[in-house]
């Protein structure tokens, strides 16, 4: 297990910090799944983004919410 991986107690603490208390029987599966997801998304750190902005769903101009169908 690498230093970057969460142990089950650490996963429980992180979840609690995020406002989600996990029951004890969920600690191990949450840690394992989070570690797997981390191993996939961590690859993005290889990319040099320079000035590249993020691409969220976003519109600068507020519009009236009365659309016709």
């Amino acid at each position, binding site marked *: 297990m690498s230093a970057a991986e969460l142990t089950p107690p650490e996963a429980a603490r992180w979840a609690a910090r995020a*406002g989600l208390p996990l029951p004890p029987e969920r600690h191990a599966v*949450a840690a394992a799944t989070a570690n797997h*997801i981390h191993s*996939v*998304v961590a690859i993005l750190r290889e990319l040099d983004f320079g000035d590249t*902005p993020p*691409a969220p769903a976003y519109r600068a101009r507020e519009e009236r919410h009365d*659309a016709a*169908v």
Partner: protein
Amino acid sequence: MRPYELSLTAAAAAIRAGELSPVELVDSVLERVERLEPHLNAYATVTAEQARHAARKAADDIAAGRSRGPLHGIPMGLKDLIDVAGVATTASSRVRADHRAQADSTVAARLGAAGAVLVGKTHTHEFAYGLTTPQTRNAWDPGRVAGGSSGGSAVAVAAGAATFALGTDTGGSIRVPAALNGVVGLKPTYGLVPRHGVTSLSWSLDHVGPLTRTVEDQALVLTALAGHDPRDPASLDAPAGDYRPGADEDLTGLRVGVPRNYYFEHVDPEVEAAVRRAADRLQALGARLVEVEIPMTRYIQATQWGLMVPEATAYHERTLRAVPELYQVDVRTLLEAGELMPAGDYLRAQRSRTLMRQEWARVLADVDVIAAPTVPATAAKADQETITWPDGTVETVSDAYVRFSAPANLTGVPSLSVPVGHDTAGLPIGMQLLGRPLGENVLLRVGHAYERSQPSRALAPAV
């Protein structure tokens, strides 16, 4: 031919000619639903009574000269993430057991205004967070997965239990079940079809689109769905169009990109052969095949997960805390793990998507469409969890099904999945055509030309 067997285009023509009444068509489809549902379980809710009532009204209106166009009196299924006023949007989840939609989603309202008749709400993988829809069976083999997450919609259309249906697609959820059940599925350009009133999996990746028997049918539905709605922040201000393809099969001058990497790696040989045969068919129709390099493939899964996982968890924040035990265990686990992803990972995925969109735009400047497999394998057995490729690589079924679909969700480009034959076990194979943003017309033209050059497809055997 019995009414439930008709394509949307054929049914609309028969209704227009006075040869078929919406009442006959809807009754025929409802009988089919009643007969097949014990075997397929495509529907979460069947609205038979309302459908019969709507069919009678459509018949009266059409007889009185008040036709609303080709969808008038046509029976449809809507994925059970799509709000219809007065009906539950269960998302195929116990979390939504007591739900009742207060108003129509934009797409339900538009289809209602076009006269389409709701047969029922179709099953989804719970909250669209999965690729198999385990409660529904494949229309070609009940021992196989339906695909997902719009599994119910694809199975209903394949089996004649709906003349068309809508699904949603966040990482392939329209195209994957379309391919696995031998129907046509379109993920439109991001923002072309409004998502207001549709339960979200991941705001920045979600799309709504049709599942149909033919490409021509797609055009009829898309014409009714497309158009700006400011209640969806991603909705584009694109002019409304008529997407119906012409009768011309000639593809002379069209450049079809055939990927030299990614899309033909870790693919079942029968799937690869069928897709290459279909690309050759496009060449025979006049298109020029051009090799293309798919960019940034190493980062596709990372970017997809980096966006989808935290967005899905954010959507479910309240219910994950209030009623976690009501979720299926696979979905609950992913939602919980999503709480543990740092914002930095999410932002990296957002920035990676910016780069990916730029790179894909460069590729699509050189070709009009890209032809590739929709999924690398046909429908897996219901209890199968992984696929082992000849080089020993093991991949989960879900990861395999998302692999080829995700790029279109990340970049927003439209993607049309078209049936291109069957494997030796008789299971359908799909080819996806990817195009430029708002290039739906080109995809439908190519798909329609291909379809016209092939013998017509039968409905799935279903039982």
